[in-house]
Structures are given as C-alpha cells and as structure tokens.
C-alpha cells in the first residue's frame, strides 16, 4: 500500500508566473513559508526591542519621561514587561528559530522537495499571522494589553480587578492558543517530513545535526504544550464564565497553573535553545574545516537533555509555596542537565581543535554563541540549586541568566544561521565588513547591558519593579541600571549595520554562487535560491555524513554528502 497523499506536481505549472499572491502570500513552498516566519519574527523583534528600550529607560531614570513615549506609570511598566517577554519568546524566538529555519532547512537538508503536508504548512504560518494580529490588537483596546508577566500567574491574571486589564488578558490567551496551534501544525509537518521523506542514503545518522536539534525541539514542544493548553482553557473559563480552577475560595488552586505552565515552560526554553545549538553545530565545522567532534554522542546528549527537560520544571517554583519536599529532587535533575550540555559545549570546542579556522561572519556569531551560552548555562546552576535559589529567585540575577541563554540563542545562534544561509535564501551575498561590525558591536554591548545585571541581582534587586529608587537598599546600586540602559540603547543601535546590510544586499548585493562557503550538506547542491521543488528532475543521493571536511580521501578540504567516490562507491 502506497501513500498517495503527496500530490503529483507538474513542474511546468510552477515554472509559469504564479502571480504575486500565489508566490508571496498564499504559498505552499516551504522556503517562502520560512521567509514569512522570518519576516514576522523580525517585525516582532523590533517591537520587542523597543519595548525593552522603554522599560530600560524607566529603570535607569524612573522619574523622567521616556523620549518619544512619555511618562511610564507602574501599570504601563507591567504591560511592557509582560509583552516584552511574551513577544520575545513566542513571537520572535519561536518563529525565527523554529518557524523560519525549520521550514527552510528541513526539506532542503534531507533532500525533500517540500514538506510532507504543504497546505498544512501554509495554514500554520497563517494561523501564526492571525496570532500576531490578535496580540497586536491587544495593545490598542480599552484596558490595554496583558500585564501579569509573561508567565501569567493567576489569580493576578484570572480576574480583571487585580490588574485593571480586561480584554487584553483574554486576547493574550487567544494569541497563545493560535500560536500553539500554528506550531503544532508546523511540528507535525517537520517530524513527518524528516521521518518519511528523506532522500535515499540519508540515514538518521547522516542527518545534519541541525535537523536532529530541530526535531528534538519540535518533539519537546509537541509533548509539553498539551498540559499548558489545558491550563489556558481553564484560565480562560475562570475569566469569562466564572469557574474557579485557580481561585482558592472556589476549591481551585493558584499553584496548579504554575505546575502546568512550567511543565511546558522548561521544555520550551530548550525548544528555543536546541535549534540555535543546531545552527551553531552546523556552522562550526564548515569554518573550522573539520568534522564535528563526537557526532553520535551529541545526538545522544541532545535526546538525554530533551528527556530530562520534562522532569525539572519545578525549579521555577522553589519558593512558590509548593511542597518543600519536591525541591531537592527537582534540584538534582536540574543540575544534572548540565551533563549533556557540558558534552555538547565541549564537543563544540573540541571541533575547533586542530582545525583551520576561518573567521567569516557566520563563524563569528557561532563562536559568540558558544562563549555567551556558557555564561548563561553556568548561571543556571545557581538558580538550579534550591537553597541558592531562595535568595536568587525573582531577582535580576535570573533576568541576567535568561538573557544570556535566550539572547545568545536567538541573536547569536540566530544570526549565525542567518548570515550562513542568507545566500541560499535570497541568492545574494551579504557584506562581510558590515556583518563583522554588526557582530562586534552586538557582542560588546550585549555584555555591557546584561553582565552588570548579575551583580545588581545579587545585590537583591527584584524583577518586574517599575522604580528601583523606591527601595533604599537599591539606591546605591542605581548606577548599574544606568550602565545597563545605556548599553541597551547602544545594543539596539548596533542592529543598524544589520538592516543596512540586508537592504543593500537585497537591492544591489552580489549574486551568490551555489556553494559560497564550501559546505557539504545537501542544500548547497541546489541553486541559490532554490526553485520551487528545490531540485530539477533528479534528486541528490547521499553517500556519507554531513561533516566530511579535510577528509584524507580527497584532495579538497570538503566532501559533499552527494558526491560519489570511485574508491568508495558501492
């Protein structure tokens, strides 16, 4: 019995002009859908970055109005924090790392012509666009946008009278629901495509690591989001029809939400981390001209970390009032997760050993990721230790921790992938000098912004406060807030070279060759940019793993996956 669900596609029909709407809007082409996710993600990155800027200004100079925005009251501040977190995690990190790279890379790297279910894929991005619209609208309705933190803890989020936000909160939940639906559709597609549509010869252990990471991330998402959806339904019912799932007076329990949220929330941070790790793992060997170190063990580590991530969630709840007997078991599993990640980070570093390292822009970002993520991972251990977290929880130390992990994933990991695959995506080359300036400025000002936050966190500064000067013990440390804010403004400004670079390249950049970096994986055997259905009449056939750089078998220092070797061909 054969599957005939995937349609028989006629190439002629697709060579013909397909018109603006079919090409750019209602496209079922995985590459276009990837670009659509990328554009939406970039749009939200601008919004999220500007919100962060307003927030930081308020923190440094709480008594002054923010230029171009005005006075920020405490209500507005809570909206800013909430929407900044929500946007950055769900509307920047997810669409860029999972949506854009997942869609663009999976079919191209496994040798498929498209996703297994192209129309479902189109639906996915459109549902995501709808989610974006809902979230955007929530800023402009009476009462304003959600303001209960990106974690939305009830009872604060469950009743309008506690925050003054009415519809904004409902739209926030709705936007999440749509976003989850979008990524469920996308996720089913990714997993099915990679399981069922690999080209002959592409065994599981010849897959590029980024595919493994994307698949693990998707699996984590699919298996963790269910309880949160259940929790969100309960929250919505509490809000609109007066059930009492989270209200103690009606027999409910506020802690329930925290368990359901973090059961999803911790896997979710790896949903963001793993694709970034994958992008970096695929960039490093290309520019070190050396195979990745310990390919199989990296896969095992990834799967181990993914499995562990389901039994660590209560580390976000050490001081939440949960049963104190739960703390140490969860503390142990949490700290244990450093073992697989230690392996992966060491393997990245070992890949550099005895390499022949080129410092092109993608490589710089990848290296930046390695360095910055190690800092963020190590600070995770402080949080992970239950007794230490008593003091650290809900302080800026945690804020510093998760910007070193999240920001390094989205920005450093993301840009590594972006600069690396840009020629394939758009068929143009980016300017190397501008890319390098972008990198160095971002690296420096990222650290200026976020490193001091560790210190002020250790000094005790709480998260989500609108005015640190209201606390006497924080007044002497206020200079740190000023440093971080100035750093943050320069960090935002550091993105200008990036915008210039992309616009200039798209308008007047040099045409990209098929394989500008001398890389091995299959996407580089397709034209830049690949046409609809990716390859011509014949698909490439795979003979070996993805990282055969400087192999002694050939004279060149690379050996593409699809090249036959007379000596080796069987």
């Amino acid at each position, binding site marked *: *019995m054969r599957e005939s669900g995937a349609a028989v596609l006629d190439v002629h029909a697709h060579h013909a002009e397909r018109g603006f709407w079919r090409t750019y809007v209602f496209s079922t082409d995985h590459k276009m859908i990837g670009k659509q996710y990328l554009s939406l993600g970039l749009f939200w990155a601008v919004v999220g970055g500007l919100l962060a800027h307003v927030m930081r200004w308020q923190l440094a100079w709480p008594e002054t109005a923010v230029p171009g925005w005005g006075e920020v009251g405490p209500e507005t501040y809570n909206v800013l924090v909430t929407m900044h977190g929500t946007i950055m995690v769900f509307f920047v990190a997810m669409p860029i790392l999972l949506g854009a790279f997942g869609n663009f890379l999976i079919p191209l790297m496994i040798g498929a012509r498209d996703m297994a279910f192209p129309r479902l894929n189109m639906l996915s991005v459109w549902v995501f666009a709808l989610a974006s619209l809902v979230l955007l609208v929530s800023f402009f309705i009476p009462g304003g946008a959600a303001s209960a933190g990106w974690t939305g803890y009830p009872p604060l989020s469950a009743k309008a009278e506690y925050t003054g936000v009415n519809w904004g909160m409902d739209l926030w939940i709705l936007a999440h629901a749509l976003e989850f639906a979008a990524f469920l559709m996308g996720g089913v597609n990714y997993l099915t495509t990679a*399981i069922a549509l690999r080209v002959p010869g592409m065994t599981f252990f010849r897959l590029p690591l980024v595919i493994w990471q994307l698949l693990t991330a998707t699996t984590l998402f699919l*298996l963790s989001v*269910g*309880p949160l959806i259940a929790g969100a339904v309960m929250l919505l019912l509490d809000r609109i029809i007066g059930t009492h799932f989270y209200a103690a007076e009606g027999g409910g*329990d506020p*802690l*329930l939400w925290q*368990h359901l949220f973090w*059961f999803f929330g911790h896997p979710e941070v790896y949903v963001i981390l793993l694709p970034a790790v994958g992008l970096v793992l695929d960039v490093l060997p290309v520019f070190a001209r050396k195979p990745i170190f310990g390919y199989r063990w990296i896969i095992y580590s990834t799967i181990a970390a993914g499995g562990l991530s*389901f*039994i660590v969630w*209560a580390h976000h709840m050490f001081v939440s009032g*949960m*049963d104190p*007997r*739960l703390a140490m078991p969860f503390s142990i599993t949490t700290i244990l997760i450093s073992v697989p990640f230690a392996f992966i980070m060491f393997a990245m570093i070992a890949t550099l050993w005895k390499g022949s390292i080129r410092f092109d822009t993608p490589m710089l970002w990848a290296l930046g990721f390695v360095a910055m993520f190690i800092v963020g991972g190590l600070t995770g251990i402080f949080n992970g230790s239950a007794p230490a977290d008593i003091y650290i929880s809900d302080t800026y130390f945690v804020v510093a921790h998760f910007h070193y992990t999240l920001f390094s994933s989205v920005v450093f990991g993301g840009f590594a992938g972006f600069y690396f695959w840009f020629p394939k995506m758009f068929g143009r080359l980016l300017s190397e000098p501008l890319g390098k300036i972008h990198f160095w400025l971002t690296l420096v000002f990222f650290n200026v912004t976020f490193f001091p936050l560790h210190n002020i966190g250790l000094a005790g500064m709480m998260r989500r406060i609108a005015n640190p000067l209201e606390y006497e013990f924080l007044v002497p440390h206020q200079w740190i807030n000023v440093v971080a804010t100035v750093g943050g403004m320069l960090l935002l400004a550091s993105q200008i070279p990036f915008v210039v670079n992309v616009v200039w390249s798209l308008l007047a950049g040099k045409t990209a060759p098929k394989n500008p970096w001398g890389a091995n994986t299959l996407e580089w055997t397709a034209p830049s940019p690949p046409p609809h259905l990716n390859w011509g009449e014949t698909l490439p056939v795979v003979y070996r793993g993805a990282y055969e750089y400087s192999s002694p078998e050939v004279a060149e220092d690379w050996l593409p996956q699809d090249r036959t070797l007379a000596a080796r061909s069987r």
Partner: protein
Amino acid sequence: MASHGRPNYVAIWGWLVALMILGLAASFLPGARGLAVALIFATAVAKALLVALNYMHLKFEPRLIYAIAIVPVLFVLMLIVALFPDFVFSR
C-alpha cells in the same frame, strides 16, 4: 493491513461492551470502594488497549509509532505523580 491479517473487529466490539458492563457493575459493588475503583479503571485500561491495538492497528505498527504513542502516556503518569504532594497531600 490486509497483509497482516485482520483482527475480528466485531468480536473486539463484543469484548468492549462486555468490559463496559463489567465496569458498570463494579461501580455498584457494595463495601470496599478501593476494589470497585480498581476494577472500574482496570476495565477502562483494557478497553483502551483493545481499541488502540486493534482498531488503531497499533499491533501492526513499527516501533517508532509505538514510541510516539507510549512516551506521552508515560509523561502523563509522571505528571500525576509529581502533582501529588502539592494537591493531594498538603490540602
């Protein structure tokens, strides 16, 4: 499916109905509530297994599909266990 032989769907249905009646009967069991509850859920699990294995053809699927079906069930069981201290023991 034809290549695997086909389960006797009607007979399975018979079993399902029988188990359902058993479960119902158990709920009227006098005395020890624990035994009744155990019986009720044992029949439910049996029914679910019958449907999954035969009607959903899990019996004939490769290991991969098995894993996709079983891993989430394990996660749910683990979630239940982990929620016990907070919602059963300390309320």
